[in-house]
């Protein structure tokens, strides 16, 4: 009887462990989308160590007066992916007030579900 209880306990523990490991996938409706999200999040978390110094080393560019091409070049130089698309979006929502929090830009770019790291990289390159 104790052997059976031990086996049952081990089996229960194994089932619970498996369930816990796969729990995150239960709520996902798009496996192809969630996996890249995890990988991009991982990439994003490791990105600041290499991208942030590049951004800070680059001269800031005026968000209100720079051309779309200049914005794209600055983003490209900072290693931001889809630089030209982000440059277009930044240019689209001009003019920006002299707000150190960049609330307006944050609000507009949030509509695209932007990676927070990319957002900070973009803002680090801009000035008004």
């Amino acid at each position: 009887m104790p052997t059976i209880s031990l086996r049952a306990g081990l089996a229960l523990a194994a089932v619970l462990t498996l369930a816990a490991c796969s729990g995150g996938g239960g709520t996902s409706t798009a496996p192809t989308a969630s996996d890249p999200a995890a990988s991009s999040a991982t990439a994003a978390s490791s990105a600041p160590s290499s991208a942030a110094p590049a951004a800070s080393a680059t001269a800031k560019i005026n968000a209100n007066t720079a051309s779309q091409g200049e914005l794209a070049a600055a983003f490209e130089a900072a290693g931001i992916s889809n630089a030209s698309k982000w440059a277009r979006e930044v240019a689209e929502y001009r003019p920006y007030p002299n707000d150190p929090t960049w609330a307006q830009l944050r609000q507009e770019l949030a509509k695209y579900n932007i990676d927070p790291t990319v957002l900070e990289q973009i803002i680090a390159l801009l000035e008004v």
Partner: protein
Amino acid sequence: MATSAAEATDARSSLVVIRRGLLALAAAGTIGVALELLLLRHWTETRELIAWLAVAALGVAVALVILRPTRRAILVARALGVVVLVTSAIGVFVHVWANYDAAPLDARYTASWPTTAEPVRWLLAATDTVGPSPSLAPLALAFVALVLLLALVHHQALEAPAPSR
């Protein structure tokens, strides 16, 4: 005989009430869409102005029917309604395309987008899963245009014989 004449009068007055109601709905819908576009700041890109042109067309059409319901005005209003219907369909495609174009910017899809199958890409864009544009929002214009066109069915100005030249 008198009964049928009374019924015809009743039907006619009912038709007038329904037509006026539909026109009022079209006018309210036009104002509502204009307010929505205003709140959304729907003018940051040139192509976004197309929606304003459609609203203007609806406004002109409704005004023509209410203020100057001549045969010619009704025909122009109908034509404008059809143009807005077509514009609305184009608007849906433009919204879906904008979502498709913006999809790589979405942090959840940046890595997987290049390898995502084309039908899945369009499905994600059409269902607003990616991108900032509400795909079906332009259909609000189509709804108002349809209400307007419905108000012009068998309009009395069209029933009358065309003026001879």
